């Protein structure tokens, strides 16, 4: 089985979110970057588990500049067999998805894995665009997945519960919590990652029709108003008269 895992580089969860150049660019100063947690903990690890059980190979793909290599090497250290970096700025989900679909189409991929969303742009867009560009079924928000022969049985999160579906390979899946357990790369993995192939390819030009022009940071909350625990009538009054939410 050829398993393609789309990985994205995102600011670390606790990073300070600030902007520069007239609020048009994310301020990278002092920001630590990580592999997007949904890509790393769930999509990548489940792909590696399937390879370990059924054979095949896991290919990690990233769209971004050379500074992303550190995150790609981590994917190799965790257990991906090889990696592709498409050398372009990820300016839109359409741009990223086109590059991934181009690679997947010409490399006989059985399953394309993505995280359910990135923790920076929260779009959930790339996987569904890849699926459409490849004319493949797309199973989103997968929290469990078993593969038997050519068929996968997948449990996915929907509003207020779960849905169990069956689908034949090839398909695209987006990974949510539960699909796998995080793996920490060990020293052997880190050493081996240095020798695994990381191929850099040039992107195809894409007409990105939605791009970010500027950012705003919402005003911070007012100082919290502490309420006497013996006077819940006062809290109810404030929720009704001041906050107007009940």
């Amino acid at each position, binding site marked *: 089985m050829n398993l393609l895992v789309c990985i994205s580089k995102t600011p670390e*969860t606790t990073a300070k*979110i600030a*902007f520069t150049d007239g609020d048009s660019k994310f301020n990278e100063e002092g920001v630590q970057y990580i592999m997007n*947690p949904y890509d790393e903990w769930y999509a990548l690890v489940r792909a590696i588990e399937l390879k370990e059980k059924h054979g095949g190979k896991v290919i990690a793909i990233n769209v971004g500049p050379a500074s992303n290599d550190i995150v790609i090497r981590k994917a190799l250290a965790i257990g991906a067999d090889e990696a592709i970096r498409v050398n372009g700025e990820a300016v839109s*989900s*359409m741009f990223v998805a086109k590059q991934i679909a181009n690679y997947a189409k010409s490399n006989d991929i059985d399953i394309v894995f993505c995280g359910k969303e990135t*923790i*920076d742009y*929260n*779009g*959930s*867009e*790339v996987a*569904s*665009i890849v*699926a*459409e560009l490849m004319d493949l*079924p*797309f199973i*989103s*928000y997968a*929290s469990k997945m078993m593969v038997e022969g050519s068929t996968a049985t997948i449990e*996915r999160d*929907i*509003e*207020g*519960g779960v*849905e*169990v*579906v*069956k*689908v034949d390979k090839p*398909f695209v899946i987006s990974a949510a*919590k539960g699909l796998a357990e995080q793996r920490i790369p060990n020293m052997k993995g880190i050493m081996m990652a240095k020798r695994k192939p990381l191929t850099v390819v040039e992107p195809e030009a894409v*007409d990105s*029709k*939605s*791009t*970010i*022009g*500027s950012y*705003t*940071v*919402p005003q911070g*909350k*007012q100082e*919290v*108003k*502490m*309420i006497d*625990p*013996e006077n*819940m*009538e006062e*809290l109810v009054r*404030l*929720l009704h008269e001041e*906050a107007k*939410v*009940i």
Partner: protein
Amino acid sequence: MSVLIFAEAKKGEYKKNAQEAVYYGAKLASQVGTEAIVFTIGDGSNANELGSFGASKIWFNNNSASTDSQVVSALIAQAASKAEATHVILSNTALGKSIAGRIAVKMDASLVSGANALPEGSSVTKGVFSGKAVAKYNLSGDKHVISVMGNSLQPEATGAAGIPEEISLDAPASRVTVVESKTVDGVVPLPEAELVVSAGRGMKGPENWGIIEDLAKVLGATTACSRPVADTGWRPHHEHVGQTGVAIRPNLYIAAGISGAIQHLAGVNSSKTIVVINKDPEAPFFKAADYGVLGDLFDIVPKLTAALEKFKAQ
């Protein structure tokens, strides 16, 4: 020219997210000087009410009951073509997220998922960095797909109900088989809940959740929980709000016994009003709260429930 709104039916009914999408689409249509057409999949029953949120036409098609993204997106794209739509509007639900990108590809359109306000000219805003910032997206081209984040607008039913008409479309065969669907009925799903009561490890065990359910009941709120609570199985997984769970933006979020780790805040910090009940004065959640109550939740939550009962009885 038109704005086409996809209204998602859940078991033949239209929840608030569908009403909100229709209202958003109708406002947008009047902004750009065109008509708002609702499209829904099913037999069209109950769809007449959607007219009151500002749609001039309601179309339905009943060729397929599938919720497969390939089938649903194909039907919507055909309806959009029939409507000569410049915009397709949908809800940012589980289904919406699985089809928005597909529709944008089919229509060669711009795409913004999770918009939090109406477009202004050729730009539209949405929350990014898990609610810590808002990004303004510039849209180019002549077709646009926008999914609307729940609780972004308050839908108002001011117009008259419409008469649904059936349109003929070709539904492709689905390659996905639904084996079973396990959902909780009779509860407002978290992403569209206006009032949410949530609790964490401070509850000490699942057997103590009665006081949270009582508070939720008197408010008409949906219950939620923090990650450790879902991980230990005290509460079902679908109740988990936070970075790895569901992201919500209710009008009121009451958190009892949740310290407020940054990963939890990432899923709830877009809530309009946050009330935090905690016995630890150092709990980081107090910094993100509008109202705080310092003390034992087992004492405070029942008192709050009683105060709300008194308020509701007035």
